[in-house]
């Protein structure tokens, strides 16, 4: 068929090298009624890859709640959309870029950020905020400094330059990620609800435009894991190469695309993400139930020697495909040209229902679109609960520390709980001029000028909880995210999830996955929120060992009045400190247990969703009504750490008495959920108590802010448990992350 030299003739063994199974190859033969061309095999292999087809996860994802009164667009488009009032919508999504970031941390992170940004502005929304969720091996692992520095510089390098504020995120260190780090990137954009763009190609004869950077050999088969030694023999040049991000071009793409989309000329638009030109064209055709024909001779190339196979599969960054109304191509081209971007007609929409590509006058690909999408394999992978369980917690062997202040100082200086400022100070959190609450608190809060309201957003997952119990652990992830949003004064709207797991071919991983989905579903139902977008990342294994299951939850909430939000920092002396909700004496799963004793117990903290919701909604209501403007949830590190964080953020001390039932360390460092600390000015204290009583939320006045020390006593006995100055508390807290990045961090040994 093609005049271009064939690299290999197509047979079963080549199909295997492309990651297709014998059965899958047979299905391809049946669909085509002939042997596929080399290019067609490439197209099938990427479209049917786990990454593009969700073949192992699709049967489970359907269990997630995907609709609701606020949902304008659920899963299925480039990103999801929710109604935020005033005729406006928020578009958001989280996505993984794990493997590339392990290979080349800087470029892996940049291209991760670039990719998720494109998913947002293709929907017509201006990206306004980025979050990132990062997981590395243990803090003292030899590769951690290199990976941490590279990833953080990459996230910042792209976001800062492209001009979108990075307002929050999370960073975790755990030996379980030492061979497979996680880099999950989130972007949120804002758009008028009636101007949301969807990517369904339509209109026989409408031209297809290629916009943005030229195509090179970047990341060919990045999505489908190429395993072909022949390629290397053929030529060194054939090796798949790392993608490099170009934030400057992306910046121009954003401006140009938003300008084009403000007009009335575009039918559909889609970025070229994983599997590049192929998947973007096929997905648009599939959504619109049309065919598409591409003339590969017109693809702008970085190197003339690219083969049609490479053009179809290249993952070069900063490229988009547009379907434009016939006759309007010039208007569109002119805008892109003014922004200095390549814009070329490369094909058209057809009524054939086929994905067709021609090269030098010959047809190299002709496949029914449905065969690539709807007919893609879908697997019910075997599921098997693990047979071994961690040992239940036996507290008798774990001596309570004599010096609880020192224990708190050590906890604050631990890699998990220390200040993240070394990370987020490398990110521009100001650009856009809407950041009401930036990084350093719970959720970030970004104003929406068009409505006078604001959006709160956070990413959370405690993978230690998930490893102990995927069902409960995932509920915790949703609930912690919700709490982080509630305490800023926002009402949770919807989530986007990034499900990072090991190989789906392992029954135990599929069990974790399935249980995590159930946990996410039940938590979402309890909170009346939907999952509107997300991403599944399987095969996070090294040498047969899977990462801890990590269903990262990105949650977005709505603040009605941007002037009514709360921060973590204590406002000053004389405020009454209240605890909303109540804890149990439980240490299971806590940061304290693992740091100090090196054990976890056999289950995470208990979950009480009704109590979570009551406490959260009370707190949110108090903030929205202007009663309190300082709130912080209790999460990793427990009550004492949460109090210390409020003192450190505000540079003000507090003197409190806490209930102790049994061990003091459990009261101070246990991680029971459904608890929120608020600080209320003296005049508002009564209101807090009355509203808590009316809403049935346990509410206890613990003490007052003031001075320069954190003093925590036991309520019943009056014994002082913790007494530390702000300087003492922050000594290690401030410096640990820089020490990790510079390879100077030495982990203390657990004492037992």
């Amino acid at each position, binding site marked *: 068929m093609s005049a271009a030299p064939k690299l290999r003739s197509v047979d079963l063994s080549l199909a295997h090298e492309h990651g297709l199974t014998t059965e899958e190859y047979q299905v391809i033969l049946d669909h085509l009624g002939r042997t596929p061309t080399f290019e067609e095999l490439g197209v099938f292999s990427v479209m049917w890859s786990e990454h593009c087809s969700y073949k192992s996860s699709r049967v489970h994802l359907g269990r997630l709640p995907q609709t609701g009164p606020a949902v304008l667009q659920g899963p299925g488009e480039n990103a999801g959309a929710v109604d935020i009032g005033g005729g406006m919508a928020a578009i958001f999504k989280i996505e993984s870029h794990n493997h590339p970031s392990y290979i080349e941390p800087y470029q892996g992170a940049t291209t991760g950020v670039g990719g998720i940004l494109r998913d947002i502005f293709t929907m017509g929304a201006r990206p306004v905020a980025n979050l990132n969720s990062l997981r590395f091996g243990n803090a003292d692992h030899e590769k951690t400094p290199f990976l941490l520095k590279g990833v953080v510089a990459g996230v910042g390098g792209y976001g800062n330059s492209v001009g979108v504020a990075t307002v929050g995120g999370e960073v975790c260190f755990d030996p379980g990620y030492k061979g497979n780090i996680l880099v999950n990137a989130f972007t949120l954009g804002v758009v008028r609800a009636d101007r949301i763009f969807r990517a369904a190609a339509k209109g026989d004869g409408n031209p297809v435009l290629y916009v943005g950077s030229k195509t090179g050999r970047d990341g060919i088969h990045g999505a489908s894991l190429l395993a072909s030694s022949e390629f290397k023999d053929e030529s060194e040049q054939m090796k798949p190469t790392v993608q*490099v991000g170009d934030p400057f*071009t992306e910046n121009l793409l954003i401006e140009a695309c938003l300008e084009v989309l403000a007009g009335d000329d575009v039918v559909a638009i889609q970025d070229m993400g994983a599997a590049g030109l192929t998947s973007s064209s096929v997905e648009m055709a599939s959504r619109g139930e049309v065919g598409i024909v591409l003339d590969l001779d017109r693809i702008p190339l970085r190197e003339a020697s690219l083969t049609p196979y490479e053009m179809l599969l290249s993952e070069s960054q900063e490229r988009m495909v547009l379907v434009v109304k016939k006759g309007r191509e010039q208007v569109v081209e002119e805008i892109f040209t003014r922004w200095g971007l390549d814009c070329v007609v490369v094909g058209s929409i057809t009524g054939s229902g086929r994905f067709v590509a021609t090269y030098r006058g010959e047809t190299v690909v002709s496949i029914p679109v449905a065969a690539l999408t709807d007919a893609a394999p879908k697997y019910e992978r075997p599921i098997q609960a693990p047979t071994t369980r961690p040992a239940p917690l036996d507290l008798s062997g774990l001596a309570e520390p004599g010096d609880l202040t020192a224990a708190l100082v050590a906890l604050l200086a631990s890699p998990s709980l220390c200040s993240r400022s070394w990370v987020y100070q490398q990110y521009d959190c100001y650009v856009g001029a809407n950041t009401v609450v930036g990084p350093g608190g719970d959720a970030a809060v970004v104003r929406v000028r068009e409505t006078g309201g604001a959006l709160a957003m956070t990413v959370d997952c405690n993978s230690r909880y998930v490893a102990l119990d995927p069902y409960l652990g995932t509920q915790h992830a949703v609930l912690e995210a919700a709490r982080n949003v509630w305490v800023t004064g926002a009402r949770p709207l919807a989530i986007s999830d990034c499900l990072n797991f090991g190989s789906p071919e392992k029954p135990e991983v599929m069990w974790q996955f399935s249980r995590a989905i159930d946990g996410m579903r039940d938590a979402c139902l309890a909170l009346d929120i939907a999952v509107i977008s997300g991403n599944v990342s399987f095969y996070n294994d090294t040498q047969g060992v899977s990462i801890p299951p990590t269903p990262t939850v990105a949650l977005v909430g709505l603040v009605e009045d941007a002037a009514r939000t709360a921060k973590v920092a204590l406002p000053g002396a004389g405020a009454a400190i209240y605890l909303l909700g109540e804890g149990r004496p439980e240490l299971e799963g806590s940061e304290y247990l693992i740091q100090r004793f090196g054990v976890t117990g056999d289950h995470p903290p208990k979950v009480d969703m009704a109590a979570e919701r009551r406490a959260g909604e009370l707190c949110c209501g108090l903030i929205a009504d202007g009663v309190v403007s300082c709130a912080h949830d209790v999460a990793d590190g427990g009550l004492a750490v949460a109090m210390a964080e409020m003192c450190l953020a505000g540079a003000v001390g507090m003197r409190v008495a806490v209930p102790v039932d049994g061990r003091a360390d459990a009261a101070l460092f246990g991680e029971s959920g459904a608890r929120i600390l608020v600080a209320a000015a003296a005049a508002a204290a009564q209101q807090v108590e009355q509203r808590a009583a009316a809403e049935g939320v346990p509410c206890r006045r613990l003490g007052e802010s003031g001075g320069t020390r954190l003093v925590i006593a036991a309520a019943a006995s009056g014994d002082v448990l913790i007494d530390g100055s702000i300087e003492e508390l922050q000594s290690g807290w401030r410096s640990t992350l820089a020490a990790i990045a510079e390879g100077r961090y030495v982990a203390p040994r657990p004492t037992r």
Partner: protein
Amino acid sequence: MNFQVRVFVTPKPSILDPQGKAVANSLHSLGYDEVVEARLGKLIELRLGGADREAVSARVDEMCRRLLANQIIEDYRFEIEEARS
């Protein structure tokens, strides 16, 4: 003996070089139309001691592989000169 080493680290030919592209564009807009391509790399100048040229070469090659170049996206070369001083 003292040596002066110049290490050249350049983006691999097939890797996108946004910086080089930008330099070429700028040169064009300044009227230097004769420029066909620009690529931007790093120059690392090292002053170091060593027994002889071969020994230095082996060490510098190791430095390049371990630290100075990222071979996933970059190539390197170096030149060794005996230092005058």
